[in-house]
Each structure stands twice: as C-alpha cells, then as structure tokens.
C-alpha cells in the first residue's frame, strides 16, 4: 500500500490524539511501522531560556516534562493493536527541528500529525509547527483537522 514507516509527532492535544488514532488505522491498512514522537520544548512552553535559572530547578522541570511526555506516548502505544509494530520517543529540543531531524533519521515515508496543537490559538487553522513540518519535510505529510467545537 505504499508506506512502511509513519512518524506521528504528538503534543498531548486532542488534535494530536485524533491524528494518532488515524495513524494507527493507517498503519494497520498499510502494514507500516509507527513511531510516536513527543518533543519537550521548555523554552516554548514555559518561556524559560535554557541559560537562566539554577541547574537543579531546570533539571527537575525538564524531568517532569519528559515524564509527562512518556505518559502521553504510553497512552498511545496502548491503543496500538498487537499486529502493528510501534515505538515512542520523547526528546527535548526545538520542536520543529527535532521532528524534522527524526523524520530524516528514521527515514519515515509519511508524517501524520494534527493541523493544530497545544500552542496554536483557537483561530489558527494550521499551527506553526504543522506548517513548518509540512513545508520542510522531504516526505509526504498528512494533516488531520481538529474537531470543530
């Protein structure tokens, strides 16, 4: 059916969850492998530049964020049926850069993600990360729209 490895960046938003569900179904149809990716970007989410603050404080904030990310990944991996090969990665760094780097490194042939994430304002139809990934990824990208509320 064409795709063998699908990368699914997730941020914990409802849109990301919906995209992950679609990706799981797609992986079943295509017999593709799934990789869920959660990026912890402290600078973006908390406004904490990495150079500022005591080392201990920074470390525990980072650890909490990575913990939270792993929980999100575990929830998604639970939904994957046994016949589909899937794994999850939680990485810290610049969201867009990490996603694109992982896409290259994993040699995925498709990225499935929500059109909007946690960061985007409600009025934004295509979030900045989705947009950036779409424009810069060398593979095809499927955007799953958020449910209208």
């Amino acid at each position, binding site marked *: *059916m*064409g*795709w063998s490895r699908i990368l699914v960046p997730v941020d914990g938003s409802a849109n990301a*969850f*919906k995209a992950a*569900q*679609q990706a799981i*179904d*797609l992986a*079943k*149809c*295509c017999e593709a492998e799934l990789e869920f990716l959660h990026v912890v970007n402290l600078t973006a989410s908390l406004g904490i530049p990495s150079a500022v603050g005591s080392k201990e404080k920074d470390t525990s904030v980072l650890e909490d964020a990575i913990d939270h990310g792993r929980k999100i990944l575990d*929830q998604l991996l*639970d*939904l994957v049926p046994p016949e589909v090969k899937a794994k999850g990665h939680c990485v810290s760094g610049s969201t867009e850069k990490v996603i694109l780097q992982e896409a290259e490194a994993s040699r995925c042939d498709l990225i499935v993600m929500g*059109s909007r994430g946690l960061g985007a304002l409600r009025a934004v*139809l*295509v979030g900045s990360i989705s947009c950036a990934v*779409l*424009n*810069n*990824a*060398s*593979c*095809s*990208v*499927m*955007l*799953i*729209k958020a*449910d209208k509320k």
Partner: protein
Amino acid sequence: MKNQNSVEAGKAKGAIFMQAVLHILVPVDGSLHSDRAVAQAVKLASAGKNRIDLLYVAYFDQATDDAVTKISWLPGSVTGSTGKLSRTILQRAAALIPPEIEQTQQVRTGIPAKEILAFAQTQAVNLIVVGARGLGRVEGFLLGSVSQELLEQAPCAVLVVK
C-alpha cells in the same frame, strides 16, 4: 490498560481508514505534482472498496468555448477549448488509476480552492490528496497557494504529497 471508550468514540467520530468505503478527492491540473498525488491516492485506495474522485477546476465554462474566434497572441490555455483541456487533464489522471478502483472525473468552474473545498464538503470526502505544488499559477513558495488554502479550510484530512 486499553482505553477502549475513547478509541471507540474516536472511531465513531470520523475515523478515516477503517470504514467501508474510503472516499478520496484528488484535485488535478495536469502537472507532475498532481500525477504524484493521483499515484499516492491509488496506493491508499487499492486496499478495499474505495473511490477516487478526480476534480479539475476550470476558470472558464465550456459555454465560452467558441470554435470560430481564435486570438493568435493569447495562449491556448486561455482561449483554447476548456472542454478539451478538462478532458485531456482528467483522462491523463484517470489513466493512472487501475480499473479495479472506482473513480469519477469531475469538472467545476470557478476559483480552484473554493470549488475543491465545496466539493469536499458536499460530497462528504474523507481525504483530499494534493501535491505540494502545482495547482496554482504562482511557483516559488514551498507550498502552492491552492494547497495552502485547502489545508486551512478543508473539512477533512489532507495528504500533501512531496
């Protein structure tokens, strides 16, 4: 621990790939990009009873075709027969789809993004497949203007094929 409730809820609410008939819309314009989009749609459609709608949006209605008037200094794409151009483009795309996949060929007249979105809405399309570039006249952006607008306004998922 399997979260069955939300999985089922998710499936009830617009699951795309595990339903009986996957309805895919591929807007085409005769470019290599739209050829790639068709090829990708074919890969998706081949597993199961699915349908691909090929859609060409013309700026001019076939009613404006006039065999008599030919203005030599304007390009054929403007003054030539839109009917013929539509048919050529759609047939070229259709030839990429194997016979076992149900397909239709559609023409609409108007502003491409608007017509494509209206079609997706009224025909309850599950997925739009587009090339990253090619549906608009202006090159030079990473994502064509038509593809960009489709992404923003689409009532369904959009697959952008590189």
